[in-house]
């Protein structure tokens, strides 16, 4: 049993089930990120934890107490909203202490709590302003202050950074991570941004179509995605997924697929269990950073396979140069070092780190496991 338990939680509107038997146990102090495309049910799940949506079936429990029927204000949670939801008619100080006031906390205590939070978030100088007079980043801080001041069991964040511009978003991301490290509180955080999910979380739940596709640490999710959806959703640019065949040669399984000229190439797998798939179709998943120029290849890898292929388009991006090529009949992206000598239309010798390659069952789209 975890600190926050979501057990078989289901949500249906009439006959339409939008969330199917979600099971997550969150430990105390964990930073759980719910990530997925819009409409995947992540916000619905967060609202169910908050008590803003009812639970159709299943349980939500905090510290062993089932709170399905408990009013949001009595669950001892706090929430930071996407729009920040600051009360426009109140000052920053009033916004932050409104919850304490509603809970009957005496004035002196409120003032002390406000001071602590204001200092922590460096918003002391803004306390007398109205939300309309604040910048986006300042509003974000006030919204967090309103949550922090309550000292809740669980913090809920609903896409809190999506209204900020790109640079500020990165700064605030770091800030939130620092806060979590400092305070060690339990956080459930919803986002559609996979980078936020990777950087912030201790664990990620990738959601799609009302199902949790995979629950695990950022490294698990990235290196061993359960299925094609998780593999392509997490990571940017997305993992290349190409149709291929398994061919066993010299007792070792290889991926066989067509290069840009339509010639078949063989890439040796590191996973011996794929020999069982000899002659069958698979989907081959290779992340862009596993397709490099030979000098950029991972030195710790035990299985770098050469591949000579024609370059389609090059996209210099400063730190890296991305190269698009045709592989297995699809566009595949490789990530070269910035100064790699690549030019569109030319043949080039790539190095493929097959240690990181993943094979999926084309029928179920699930990762083929030993």
């Amino acid at each position, binding site marked *: 049993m975890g600190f926050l338990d979501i057990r078989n939680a289901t949500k249906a509107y009439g006959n339409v089930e939008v969330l199917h038997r979600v099971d997550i146990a969150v430990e105390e102090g964990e930073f759980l990120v719910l990530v997925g495309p819009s409409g995947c049910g992540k916000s619905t799940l967060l609202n169910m934890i908050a008590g803003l949506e009812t639970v159709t079936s299943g349980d939500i429990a905090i510290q*062993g*107490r089932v709170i399905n029927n408990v*009013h949001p204000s009595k669950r001892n949670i706090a929430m930071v909203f996407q729009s920040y939801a600051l009360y426009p008619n109140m000052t920053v100080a009033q916004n932050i202490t409104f919850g304490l006031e509603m809970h009957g906390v005496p004035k002196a205590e409120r003032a002390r709590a406000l001071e602590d939070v204001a200092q922590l978030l460096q918003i002391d100088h803004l306390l007398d302003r109205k939300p309309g007079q604040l910048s986006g980043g300042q509003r974000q801080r006030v919204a967090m202050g309103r949550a922090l001041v309550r000292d809740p069991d669980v913090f809920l964040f609903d896409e809190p950074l999506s209204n900020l511009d790109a640079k500020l978003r990165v700064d605030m991301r770091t800030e939130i991570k620092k806060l979590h490290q400092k305070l060690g509180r339990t956080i459930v955080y919803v986002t559609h941004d996979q980078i936020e999910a990777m950087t912030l979380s201790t664990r990620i739940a990738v959601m799609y179509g009302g199902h949790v596709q995979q629950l695990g640490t950022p490294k698990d999710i990235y290196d061993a995605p359960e299925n094609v959806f998780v593999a392509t959703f997490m990571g940017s640019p997305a993992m290349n997924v190409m149709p291929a065949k398994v061919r066993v040669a010299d007792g070792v399984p290889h991926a066989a697929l067509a290069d840009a000229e339509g010639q078949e190439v063989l890439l040796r797998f590191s996973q011996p269990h794929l020999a069982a798939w000899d002659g069958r179709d698979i989907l081959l998943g290779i992340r862009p950073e596993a397709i490099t120029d030979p000098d950029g290849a991972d030195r710790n890898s035990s299985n770098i396979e050469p591949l000579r292929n024609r370059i389609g388009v090059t996209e210099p991006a400063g730190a890296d140069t991305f190269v698009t090529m045709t592989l297995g009949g699809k566009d595949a992206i490789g990530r070269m070092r910035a100064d790699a000598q690549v030019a569109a239309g030319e043949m080039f010798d790539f190095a493929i780190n097959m240690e990181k390659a993943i094979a999926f069952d084309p029928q179920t789209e699930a990762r083929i496991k030993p």
Partner: protein
Amino acid sequence: MATTRAQPDFRTRLQDWLPRIVLSPSIAMMFVFVYGFIVFTIYLSFTDSRMLPSYDWVGIENYVRLWGLRAWWTAVINLGIFASLYIVICTAIGLSLAIFLDQKIRGEGLLRPIYLYPMALSFIVTGTAWKWIMDPGIGIENTMHLWGWESFEFRWIKDRDMAIYTVVIAAVWQTSGFVMAMFLAGLRGIDNEMLKAAQIDGASNWNLYRRIVIPLLRPAFLSAFVILAHLAIKSYDLIVALTGGGPGRATELPATFMYSYTFTRNSMGIGAASAVIMLMSIAAIMTPYLYAELREKK
């Protein structure tokens, strides 16, 4: 850690019900005073109620008698003439004023309130003013004579055949400014870049309005039509103040017909039947419109 199951406390359950409790007085009033009353009046229209309500069922007799009455036919025909002229003229004036006012007019801020203020007045005030303005003895006719146009004649308000048109004049005076405001809001909502594109495409001003702007004002046309039609059917005060239904019964409308049959001529059953017909004609106009508006919003 043992699992306990928290039950909703009283306050939480009260919070769940409060919204409905707060809404209920209004809803109750609506069901009694609007829909209950409508049902009751419909029921009365099938009874032989005369001076007082009676509950003896007579079937559709009241409706048969109603449609056999000359006075009712006069009222319905008057409504047909009045409503169509009122709607067409208000729309034409409103649209023209709006388009002209939208041409970077100097003094627009002064003209707009002048066009609109009649809407703030009571129909009784409007009726009183126009009653004397159109009175042949002291009004326009007299003024024209004094200004030297001896042959000028304008005595519609005393003329059985023409009196209904004086109602149109007064009603148009009162509401056309409002229609102007509706169209002006519609015009200001049109994307300027689209107009520039059309001009670059070589459209003349006339074509610009005929082919692009006016079709884009469709929603404003629809709203104006619905509002004006419903005002026309409900017109009562203006008739009372302007012509009193006369000369004779020449300017009776269904609304005044209903009132006099119910309360002064002791034919409550027929009055109720005429009210039901008024309701049905308004429902025929409003229901599809409201339905579409509410659906759109979702």
